């Protein structure tokens, strides 16, 4: 059990490292990055699905997001979408953190 957790954590760090290396506008502390991934899966996931295949909110798979402007997606995360249940996350996330999540989603590399 502990071994499995350790392997999972190593994979998580590796995936985060990859995602950051590709876009990496800001270096997030690994602990914060892990928190954000958890938030993405479980809290964004409450509307978009644990596996991000959609729910009350649209799917966030790379194919669903293909062609969308990353900066517009960052804005959507921070400001929400009026007229829909998508809330503004700016009180809980800063721009670099939103960008980190958007990059993970666009790359299809959510650990």
């Amino acid at each position, binding site marked *: 059990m502990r071994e499995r957790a350790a392997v999972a954590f190593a994979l998580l760090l590796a995936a985060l490292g990859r995602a950051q290396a590709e876009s990496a506008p800001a270096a997030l502390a690994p602990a914060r990055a892990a928190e954000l991934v958890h938030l993405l899966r479980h*809290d964004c996931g*409450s509307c978009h699905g*644990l596996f991000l*295949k*959609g*729910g*009350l909110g649209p799917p966030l798979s790379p194919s669903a997001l293909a062609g969308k402007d990353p900066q517009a997606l960052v804005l959507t995360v921070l400001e929400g979408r009026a007229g829909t*249940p998508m809330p503004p996350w700016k009180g809980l996330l800063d721009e670099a953190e939103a960008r980190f999540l958007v990059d993970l989603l666009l790359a299809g590399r959510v650990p």
Partner: protein
Amino acid sequence: MRRRGLLATSAALATFPRPAGAGCPEPRGTGDLLVVVERARGSVLVAESTRRTILGRIEGLGDLSHASMVFSRDARYAFVFGRDGGLSKVDLVERRLRARIVQAGNAIGGAIGRDGRIVAVANYEPGGVRLFDAESLDPLLEIPAIGADGRRSKVVGLVDTADGGFAFALFDAGEIWLLDVTDLAEPRITRFAGVGSLPYDGNVTADGRFYLAGLFGEDGVVLVDLWHPEAGARRILDGYGRGEAPLPVYKMPHLEGWGTAGEHLFLPAVGRHEVLAVDRRSWREAARIPVLGQPVFVVVRPDGREAWVSFAHPDNGKIQILDLERFAVAATLSPGRAILHLEFTPRGDQVWLSARDDDRVIVMDPRRREVLAHLPAEKPSGIFSTARAHRIGS
């Protein structure tokens, strides 16, 4: 003589066979069971509240990230509705998966009809309701949720009604539909169009008379009197936000688990950190109780004296207990990390809370507010008592 005795014994065994096979558990009833969804693992735990132990785990139920369940009328089977459109029939006695189908691309929940023969599932993709034979899970009927706008809508708030039918709401189209399946060959639908913007969930009162749908797109709740559907859908609690800018909602509230206490029904407000008390006779707001965050579940203790409230992120580690006599917060607890759901035992001696980020279920004494047990569970979410088998709308 002795020989005859032996023969008699074997005849009795043939008539009432014991479960075959080694390690087969002693038969036990299901009346004290709670079934816990393990959302990430795609499994459910079958637990009992008499000794507060886990009896077993049933795996292979798919994506359970927003899973709920209903029970057969004999409380032997749970029908588990998965996010991925999976519908699984779980045997709580033998503790194994009995049947499983994937009936849609994306689903949100379901209901079982009054006579126990029909299981209905609410689907997001493709938007609509599908009915299945509770015995075999064979498909019986499909109702595409095409609103007055001509588009297919996601379906929410699907419940069974006292007349043997079902009620649900169309999220995108803003409608409420009543489905009469007295004759499956000729299902009849009563549509209420234009009831309000983005109904996010719906539920029926315990007596089966009133269906209510909460609105996300505006401040208000829609009410249909199922005794008098001809009277139409009516708006209650209209404009309860009174022009204030709504607060962000990081998790959609649920109407499942709501309850009445005395003359009042208690609901989570949307975009307000308040629980609304509604007078059940006039359907007017009776009180609003300020709470610490966006309420998700407002679950009334079976005796109606208190309600336990869970919260959306980032306050989901807290629970507030409301005194329903005084309409005030009686206590604030921090029982664990990411409390996703809670369920009382039928007579209220225990409340079970799922602490997702602690990977455990917390069992508490609701009156003393003390922990009775911790049960290990992997990323637990919904907890469902088999007592729901005998309730309308659950």
